[in-house]
Every structure is written in structure tokens, then in C-alpha cells.
């Protein structure tokens, strides 16, 4: 959104009043920093084995303890932040681009395009998302690349639906007619007048979606279908800690906590953004 003067300040002020959203933003800033600075802040090499120090409880040298082959859990958590955030950001970006393109085509190009594209979306929506993802990864083989392909192949439909719906209602607005009256071409109307109006719902959806994607990545990796060991990743860590759940619960507690905190933070931020970016609430206040 092009922010100038008062409106942008309004948005920031409203946002600041939402404590949960501010909290979520703070957590996400912290996680981003951790991900970016991983090599500098991680105390140990996340993949270095040290069999003499396996399954240590949290202590002063290893703040979160060590796992079954003596790797430092804190370091693995820090590097895992990197893996999760990077993959989910890439997935969301591809989904948004693809979903917006398809949704715009469906909503704007007319009946025939709409019917074809929306039936395709319906077909994809008819399958449970996670099963479809597992099938695609199963067919392609497990790797980060294939994980991204599988997640985006399933995830873009949500954006396409939202974008199409918004466009159908926006294209009936008078300002679109008035844009045509000043000589705008169809393409120009789509890019200059319709897209700015659908950015807010897409941003909100994308933020909310980040949490789901992080869970999917962890879940698939846990099942051995996503990121492969020994890459530090929260889902893999959960999987590796599973046999020692009773004797060394910290192996699962810390990665589990990380997943929970990250997903919650994205959801808080998404909720806050939804309240703030709804242009109608801005006009109303």
C-alpha cells in the first residue's frame, strides 16, 4: 500500500494498541534476527557429533542440552529457525504470486476463464491439503525443493479464491467505471486500480498462512518427507527425540516450543494486520 502521511500514521497507531499483535511482531523480529545471525550466535556447530556428550540435560555449557548423538540442541534450534523461516517465506511468496495471477485472471477476464480456473481450484480443494502434499512429495522424492513444490501446489488455491472474490466485488465499483471513463486500458485498471484494493486481504492471508506452512514443514519433516537429516530442522528434531521422550524429554520440548511460539506469533500478527488493514475500519474511525 502506498502510505502517505496521515493514513500510514493511523495504521501504525491502531496497530500499536493491539498488544498481541505487537508481541507477535516482536517475536518475529527476534526470530528473523536469530535466523539471519545463526552462524554468529550459535555456540556449537549444529551438525557436529560428540558421542561422549550424548543426551545431556540442559546445563551451563549446553543451555538446552544435547541430543542422542551429542549435538548441541540450542545450536540446532537456532539453525532450525533459519530453515523453517526461509522455506516458509519462499513458499508464501510463490503461493501469493501464483494465487494472485490466477485469481485476477478468473475474476477479471470473464466467465469462461473464471469457470475453467475455479473448477481447477475446486478440484484441488476437494482433496485434503496435507494428504495431497504427502502424495506429491512421495511422487517427487523428499528434498527441500520438492517440499516447496508440494506446499505451493496445494497452497495457492486459497489466494486465488480470495483474490477472485475481491475482484468480482471491486470490478462493479463506480471507480472502475470512472477509470475506464478517463481512458484506462483493461490491463492498467487491473494493475493500477484493482490490485491496490486486494493487497490488504492478501497480506493478511499470507501472514496467517505462514503459521500453517511452518507446521506443515515441521510435520512433513517429522514424517521424513521434507527436509532431510542431518539438516537442523524442528520437525526432524522432534522425530529424533521421539525414542527418548521419557528419558530425555528436552529433546522434544524445545523444538516443540519453538514451533508453537513461531506459529502463534504469525497468527497474532495476522490478526492484528487484519484489524488494521481493513480499509473500511480506517474510514469508519
Amino acid at each position, binding site marked *: 500500500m502506498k502510505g502517505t502521511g496521515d493514513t500510514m500514521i493511523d495504521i501504525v497507531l491502531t496497530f500499536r494498541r493491539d498488544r498481541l499483535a505487537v508481541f507477535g511482531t516482536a517475536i518475529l523480529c527476534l526470530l528473523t534476527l536469530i535466523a539471519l545471525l545463526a552462524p554468529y550466535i550459535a555456540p556449537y556447530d549444529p551438525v557436529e557429533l560428540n558421542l561422549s556428550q550424548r543426551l545431556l540435560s540442559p546445563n551451563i555449557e549446553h543451555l538446552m542440552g544435547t541430543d542422542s548423538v551429542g549435538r548441541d540442541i540450542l545450536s540446532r534450534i537456532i539453525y532450525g529457525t533459519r530453515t523453517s523461516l526461509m522455506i516458509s517465506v519462499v513458499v508464501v511468496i510463490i503461493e501469493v504470486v501464483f494465487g494472485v495471477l490466477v485469481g485476477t485472471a478468473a475474476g477479471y477476464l470473464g466467465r469462461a476463464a473464471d469457470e475453467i480456473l475455479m473448477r481447477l481450484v475446486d478440484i484441488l480443494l476437494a482433496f485434503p491439503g496435507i494428504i495431497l502434499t504427502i502424495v506429491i512429495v512421495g511422487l517427487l522424492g523428499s528434498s527441500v525443493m520438492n517440499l516447496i513444490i508440494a506446499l505451493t501446489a496445494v497452497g495457492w488455491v486459497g489466494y486465488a479464491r480470495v483474490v477472485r472474490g475481491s475482484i468480482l466485488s471491486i470490478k462493479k465499483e463506480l*471507480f472502475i*467505471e*470512472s477509470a475506464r471513463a478517463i481512458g484506462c486500458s483493461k490491463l492498467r485498471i487491473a494493475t493500477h486500480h484493482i490490485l*491496490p484494493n486486494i493487497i490488504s486481504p492478501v497480506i493478511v492471508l499470507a501472514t496467517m498462512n505462514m503459521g500453517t506452512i511452518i507446521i506443515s514443514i515441521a510435520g512433513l519433516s517429522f514424517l521424513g518427507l521434507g527436509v532431510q537429516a542431518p539438516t537442523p530442522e524442528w520437525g526432524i528434531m522432534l522425530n529424533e527425540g521421539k525414542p527418548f521422550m521419557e528419558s530425555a524429554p528436552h529433546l522434544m520440548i524445545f523444538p516443540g516450543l519453538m514451533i508453537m511460539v513461531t506459529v502463534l506469533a504469525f497468527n497474532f500478527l495476522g490478526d492484528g494486520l487484519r484489524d488494521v488493514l481493513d480499509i473500511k475500519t480506517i474510514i469508519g474511525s
Partner: protein
Amino acid sequence: MNLLEILNLDISFPGRAGRVQASYGANLEIKQGEVLCLVGESGCGKTILALSIMGLLPQNARINGKILFNGQNLFSLQKKEMRKIRGREIAMIFEQPASCLNPVLGVGEQIAEAIRIHENCSRKVSRKRAVDMMGLVGIPSPHRRYCQYPHEFSGGMAQRVMIAMALVFRPLLLIADEPTTALDVTIQAQILDLLESLITQFNTALLLITHDLCVAARMGNRVAVMYAGGIVEKGQLNDVFKAPGHPYTQALVKAASNEGLVSIPESTELSLLNSGCWFHLRCPLAQEICTQKMPKMQGGVCCHLC
């Protein structure tokens, strides 16, 4: 020579209950720099006529006839050529100024965009011209208001923005579709004053669509009265209002005059009219011939009895 000439324009829309005829053999002409008022009740086809000049009719419209602009038939133009005329030579402003502005774009930016569509100029230049134009239409402190959003504008100010956007290129023809209907009376007077002074300054012809005879009387050189998709009477404004020929115009003028409100008997559905004069079902003077034969325009009035 006429700037705009509408010749035998038929516009119809397919509907469930049969075809709806929104314009029936309309003939209308506008000379350079003149103000033509098109009056008529709601739903009589005024806006459809305006949209047909702009080439903005819905895709399911069936069109017959010609609209000549500077001698060029607008219906025979390519889409691209039409886009060049739209906004540059023929501009239009609408009834609801506030909803004609994109709510998520800055107001000034929208005027600047209108400039950049037709002229290859830098953002800086288009911004300067937009600010100048905002000053010209009487928006106070245009530099500051350039960055504001439509919700920060009142209805009157928004209509000024629309006028600025429409008149940036000093078009030959401005179509104003009920430009003041949504505004209160004092603002209405200001907007009409503004329109009047700008079109005189730019020598722009104005097609003013209104159902308010007072607005028409104030602004117009000539007037055309539309009923059920047809032009029933046209002529010099003073002549028509002082001595209306068509029974419908007579009823309209009577309803608007000081003799107390006289209402016209119930309205008719457009699609139901198959033969005869458009007005015969409501006409106090209707006779046998009115139900059978469509009258022809003679001496500015389209009626069997005149």
C-alpha cells in the same frame, strides 16, 4: 457543424421478460461549446445514452445507429482509438463522486494518473499539473490535499476532484451525469458555478443529464426531454420550458412550477411497450392513433397531437 450527433440510436438489452429498449431511435446534436440538458425521469435511459457516447455500455447491449463525434462514427472505432478519445476529448463525471475515486489511492495521484494515461510525461510534471488543476477547481491548499485519500474529502470536494480529472485536457465535450444530485443545495450551486465558468473558459460543450428542471433551466442553452428511451421533445431551453409541446414535458413543467405539485400518473415498464407512442398509457390526451402508431419528431416535438 455539430460537435456530436446521435443518429437513430437504438440500444436494447436482452432480459428475462424480453428485450428492454433503453434507447429508441434517439436523435440528438450538440454544437461546440453549448450546454445541452437532457432531462427525464429515473430509468428513462439518460445514463445509458451517456454511456453509449463514452463507449462504456455493458457488453450485452445491442446497439444500432450512429454517434458522430467531429464527423467520426464512434462505433466504428477500434478499442484503442476509443480509449484515446475517452478522457481526452470526451470526459465524463458521475453522480456519486465519492465512490468514483479509488479508495486506496491518493486523490492527487488519481488526477496525475489521468494525465499520464494520455501524455507521456514524468511523475513530477503530472503531479504539478494535477496540483494546478486542483487549485483551479477551487480545492484549498492543493499541495497538502494532493496526498490525501478519498475518504478525507467531502462530497462537494470529491466532485471538484472529478471535475479536475475530467477537464485536465480541456475536452471538447463533457458529459455530466447528475453531477449535483448527491450534493446539498448550497454545494450544488457552487459546483454548477464552477462547471459553468470552466466550460466557458475551455470552450467545452456540456451534456448535462439531470432530472432537476431547475438545474437544467439554470445551465442550459438547449434542452432535450427523454421518456422511456426516446427523445420526446427538444429545442431552445426558454421555448421548451415556457411553451412545452409534448404532454409529458407539459406535465413535467407543471410538476416543477409553483402551481403546486402535480404528479404524472404511474410509470410504464420499458419492455412492455410494443406499439404506439411511448407515453400513451400515462397521457391525459391519448387518442386512438397514439396506441397504434409511433409519432415522428416534428418541429422539435414527438407527438401526434402537436
